[in-house]
């Protein structure tokens, strides 16, 4: 480590960290992060033009490093524009979805208070996964889905992987339903490069490879414009960022729980992938970015007009037998790939969720 290295960008301040083989000072690093985010936002062409109405962009908040940085960078941009007397082009609507009925959480109340204090100019809404049905998000054919509580549906599932998978699906569907109900013009998802890479491999492992473009790419998905402004930033860069702002954002960050679960019964496919990418990010950061670049080049499948939508995840179901299913074998495990007799079609990945073992 060269200790007196000066910043490679401004050449004047002392470098405080190395970002993608470049020594940067604190100021230049903050600028680097903000530029990456804003560039992405511009590319999404989601901001209202000069003469258009202000657009409303929904920003789901998780109190992780990525969505918190996103709020911070956009809030700064909006403030700057207001100060300069310029047209901002968009409003932010922050949304927090409470998962405390299904995932053990520390008390979130104090975090929300802090967030509202620090970013008072944005609309903030708090809803719970239990509100799914009031937003029309239903899971036809699942045990307990008939007017039951969301937590009962979740607890009816046989494995930790299925529960985690289902909660993620429900969260996304609820975000989309909320955005539509409140006539938002787009959703700004806070997923970092690392998170998108994790998701790519994780969805692959859960048999949802076909849906990867819908779950990771910028553009219209589920009938609304979805943008991932954090896609060019690694999690470790964001972790550094939240400690460097003035004042630091660290008090807004809920500790992530990627640590190994105490029992293997609680290990999930998603959790495994987080661990995997934690080490990949540390040792091979270019690979992380490369995975996201690669999945970004996959082209969403064309969907037949009469395609049925999966009653759980809402994605189109592609009917057709699959060699790996070995369906001509009479087996108690044979997967019910269209499942119409038990309430709605199911995609391959969701058929796995309902398996009893």
């Amino acid at each position, binding site marked *: 480590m060269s200790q007196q290295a000066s910043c490679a960008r401004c050449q004047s301040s002392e470098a405080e960290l190395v970002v*993608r083989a470049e020594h940067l000072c604190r100021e230049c690093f903050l600028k680097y992060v903000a530029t990456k985010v804003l*560039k992405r936002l511009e590319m999404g062409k989601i901001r209202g033009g000069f003469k258009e109405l202000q657009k409303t962009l929904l920003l789901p908040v998780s109190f992780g490093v990525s969505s918190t940085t996103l709020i911070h960078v956009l809030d700064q941009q909006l403030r700057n524009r207001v100060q300069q007397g310029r047209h901002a082009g968009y409003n932010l609507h922050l949304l927090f979805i409470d998962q405390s009925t299904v995932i053990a959480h520390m008390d979130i109340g104090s975090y929300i208070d802090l967030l509202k204090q620090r970013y008072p100019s944005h609309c903030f809404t708090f809803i719970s996964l239990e509100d799914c049905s009031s937003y029309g998000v239903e899971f036809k054919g699942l045990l307990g889905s008939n007017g039951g509580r969301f937590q009962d549906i979740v607890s009816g599932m046989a494995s930790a*992987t299925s529960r985690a998978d289902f909660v993620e699906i429900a969260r996304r569907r609820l975000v989309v339903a909320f955005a539509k109900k409140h006539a938002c013009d787009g959703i700004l998802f806070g997923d970092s490069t690392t998170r998108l890479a994790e998701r*790519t*491999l994780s*969805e*692959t*492992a*859960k*048999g*949802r*490879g*076909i849906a*990867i*473009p*819908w779950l990771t*790419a*910028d*553009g*219209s*998905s589920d009938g609304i414009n979805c943008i*991932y402004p954090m*896609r*060019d930033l690694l999690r470790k860069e964001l972790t550094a960022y939240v400690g460097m702002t003035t004042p630091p954002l660290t008090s807004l960050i809920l500790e992530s729980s990627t640590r190994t679960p105490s029992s*293997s019964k609680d*290990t999930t*496919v998603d959790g*495994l992938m987080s661990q*995997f990418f934690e080490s*990949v990010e540390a*040792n*091979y*950061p*270019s*690979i992380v*970015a*490369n*995975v996201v*670049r*690669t*999945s*970004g*080049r*996959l*082209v*969403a*499948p064309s969907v037949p007009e009469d395609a049925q939508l999966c009653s759980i995840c809402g994605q189109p179901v*592609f009917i057709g037998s*699959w*060699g*790996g299913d*070995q369906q001509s*074998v009479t*087996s*108690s*495990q044979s997967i019910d790939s269209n499942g119409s007799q038990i309430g709605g079609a199911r995609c*391959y*990945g969701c058929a*796995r969720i309902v398996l009893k*073992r």
Partner: protein
Amino acid sequence: MAPTLCELCKTTRALIVRPKNHQKLCKSCFISIFETEIHNTITSNSLFFPGERVAIGASGGKDSTVLASVLKTLNERHHYGLNLILLSIDEGIKGYRDDSLKTVKRNAKQYDMPLEIVGYDELYGWTMDQVVEQIGKKGNCTYCGVFRRQALDRGAARLDIKHVVTGHNADDTAETVMMNLLRGDLPRLARATSIVTASAASDIKRSKPLKYAYEKEIVYYALHKGLDYFTTECIYSPEAFRGSARTLIKNLEKVRPSAILDVVKSGEDMARLVPDEVSAAGQGGKDVLVVEGEAYRAGGCGSANGRSSGGEMADTERQLLESEKAQGNETEISHLGQKHDRNCKIPNRTLRKLPKQQMGKCVRCGYLSSQDICKACMLLEGLNKNRPKTQIQVSVDEEDNSSRLTRRMESLKIIPAEQM
């Protein structure tokens, strides 16, 4: 406590928990369902035709031994009418291949199948022992993989056989899917999962009847059928590496038994999402490099079926860093994360880098290649250049060396030109 009964026949005591779905089965139901599933794979993909002569790429390891045993059983049971032949490669590795070849020779007797052995020494003038002596252990798998692919084709051509089956299992396929995602190799992602691969470099069809069979089930099957196979891994293959795609697949299987199959399913689906121009670029073009390189992944090692060593992650990272440096950071942004209701075909870097090239013959050995000189001959050139004179014995210069290879190749029955 009453013994658990088999979930299928419900009469015999269950002795096996099926790795794939944790179904509890008796021994004979397990063997029968394992065979039936492979039969389904064969029939639903119409892998064979009656009277077809099929070479089984046999290494003596568990996968190819189980493949030979199952194919023999199914061929008789369902009257496929196949003519099955064992085809083995002798890489020339003392203490590994000579022992495993003994296994293959026993298998040939046990299954009453003819056996053909093709040696690296007769094809290339080098055994792997000699290659390692010259270049060291690092990177030798690349040589072995490139040589192997041609060797299988040449062995098949010598026997006038147009179809080689290999023992690649579901774990291998799943690993390849993950590795291609990590390496960002879309052309290979587009074809990694297909059960039949027609190589651009030969007219010999390859297929993988065990594609949906779990490695663990293959081991159980071999165990319960009392099959005679060779367990030692290649002495030159590098140590398994934590964090490799293989480890990831094994961990996923522990968390959710269906995961291996689910990855294969995703891989097949994603193959359809690879833009045509990318997958097509992978068919001809510069990609013989990739096609030949595939041997390095798929079936690189006779015993390991090309599973990753983990060194691949470090290699990939290095390559990415180099290309980033070469491209400069700013251009990179332009093709990240495109719109997905994209009717527009956004040109991108990789595409531009894949010029269409005509397939031709290697000027040295006559093997199909998009380059003037095929990969094997390139590697040989490097080897021969550095070969100590004393070892060459006859004083030959480089030219002579390559013509010596040409003679070797010619002595084999080479695919007639009109078939290329």
